[in-house]
């Protein structure tokens, strides 16, 4: 319960800061290079309730946000930020989920191999690979994939969204960073578990190696990896901004980038709050899951 309360408080703080930061921007949202007619500006201000005192605007906005209503877009006429979230979020969501699945299903086995073959060639190769993956910015990975798979080999479509083939490259580009993160995490956690007494006990009573790893070690080693799901999710959100732009995927990330270019403040505000809330809620869920799976951990301790 306390955790829930803190999460709501954090979302509230983020919404407040975002609102005041966007109000602090010099120049109104309707300033153009060629000044508009004063009456037009006045009417626009009236339409978006910008003629009210700032504090009143703030209260209104917070009440709306509490009702999950992020208001109208300044840039696209007759459309609200919620319309865009409804339309674009499913695309980003599918993309993110697949990237997570790829990262988890490759990262965990890679980490296990790396831990079991510590300092052998398998481990060294994986170590070099993960360092390289961490050092490549995702736009380099994305455009590299695009060039070689899309233009040179012509086996995958280079952009847009809709067919499974079009999803392959963005998913890979997004999965690269979390993948190396999970591999490192899984390795260190596996090494720690393998040093435990109960593993030695199991080994000395003659448990076969495969069963030892899968039944005894893996169950305990995989638990800490669950905690990185939160940061991983953040990485995927950040990555999706760039990756969706490159592959022109009609997702929320691209919408956000466009909003930056268009200086569409309500959109930027709304999407920032939406993304942060999403992240905070998912961290909360991960924490609760963690406590459910591992009874040794009590939520009250950390909170």
């Amino acid at each position, binding site marked *: 319960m306390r955790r829930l309360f803190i999460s709501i408080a954090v979302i509230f703080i983020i919404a407040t800061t975002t609102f005041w930061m966007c109000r602090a*921007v010099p120049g109104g949202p309707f300033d153009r290079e060629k000044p508009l007619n004063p009456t037009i500006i006045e009417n626009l201000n009236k339409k978006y309730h910008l003629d009210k005192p700032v504090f009143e605007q703030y209260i209104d906005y917070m009440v709306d946000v509490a009702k999950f209503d992020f208001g109208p877009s300044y840039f696209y006429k007759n459309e609200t930020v919620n319309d865009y979230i409804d339309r674009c979020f499913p695309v980003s969501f599918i993309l993110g989920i697949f990237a997570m699945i790829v990262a988890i299903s490759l990262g965990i086995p890679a980490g296990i191999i790396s831990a079991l073959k510590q300092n052998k060639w398998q481990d060294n190769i994986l170590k070099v690979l993960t360092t390289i993956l961490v050092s490549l910015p995702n736009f380099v990975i994305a455009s590299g994939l695009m060039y070689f798979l899309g233009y040179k080999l012509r086996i995958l479509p280079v952009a847009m969204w809709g067919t499974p083939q079009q999803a392959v490259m963005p998913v890979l580009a997004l999965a690269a960073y979390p993948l190396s993160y999970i591999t490192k995490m899984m390795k260190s956690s596996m090494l720690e578990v393998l040093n435990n007494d109960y593993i030695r006990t199991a080994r000395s009573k003659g448990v076969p190696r495969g069963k030892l790893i899968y039944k005894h070690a893996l169950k305990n080693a995989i638990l800490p990896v669950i905690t990185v799901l939160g940061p991983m999710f953040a*990485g995927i959100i950040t990555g999706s901004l760039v990756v969706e732009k490159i592959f022109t995927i009609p997702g929320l990330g691209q919408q956000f980038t466009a909003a*930056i270019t268009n200086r569409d403040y309500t959109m930027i505000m709304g999407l920032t709050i939406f993304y942060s809330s999403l992240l905070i809620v998912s961290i909360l869920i991960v924490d609760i899951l963690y406590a459910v799976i591992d009874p040794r951990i009590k939520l009250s301790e950390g909170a």
Partner: protein
Amino acid sequence: MTDSCEMMEKTEEISFKRVSKDQKEAEKILRPATTFIQDAWARFKRNKLGLVGLIIIVIMLIFAIIGPMVIPYDYRSQSLDNAFKAPGAEHLMGTDNLGRDMFVRLAYGARISLACGFAASLISLGIGVIYGTISGYAGGKVDEIMMRIVDIISSIPSMLYVILLMVVLGNSLTNVFIVIGVTGWLGMARLVRGQVLSLKEREFVLAAKVSNVSNWHIMLKHLIPNAFGPIIVSMTLSIPSAIFLEASLQFLGLGISAPMPSWGGLAQEGISALRSYPYLLWFPAIFISVTILAFNFLGDALRDALDPKQN
């Protein structure tokens, strides 16, 4: 009797021979006294990857400083006749859509990216060290509140508020430094706090306290210098993430304004011409990746060298 007495004297003479001073020294099982820095350097030299990283960084620095002076082109003078020249003798890395020499643009980009890496990590170093030291040294409720604030900020992806801050502050190089620096101090603060927490229980701090040394003096002269190793390591590792973030920002259209090139901006321009002129993307991409890789190698090597407790 006399015989045996003589014998004893003889044996005494044999077994207790005086040794010269040199021989005594030679028996000592001691390695030559080394300072911490020498020791660290010796450990560092053994790490080949770290050395490679250091060499790459030095080359990049030289390229960034001297490059723009030596290359006979200018980063902004356009000549449309020379647009999209492939890499060759005249233009080492080709020219872009406006006929600007890529090599010199990359050199300017190196200035921007490296300056950004160093400046941003210095800013986050400053904030992080001050915040972490105060939090760790004060302890108790103050510590709990300060660390809870850090937890809250770190639960939001930094990219989001970096973007927000950039939108609010506007595009300029100093703003990029500030924004990345101001958002990158969380890890540093946590690390310094941890170090301070363990250091402040040590005897020398107690000794300083009983001799009436002021709290500020203890923090500045006793605690921070002792946490120096991990701080340096963490700073080295924060440089590549600053470069990474700057490149991503530039890629999204936030950051410094044209015509000044930065690696991220060059890569973004490169992608639009990827199909026909892929070299416009490859060079900036290689520069960014190699530099980040070099800093990562250097940071790992420094960790092994400066933080021997970890092994």
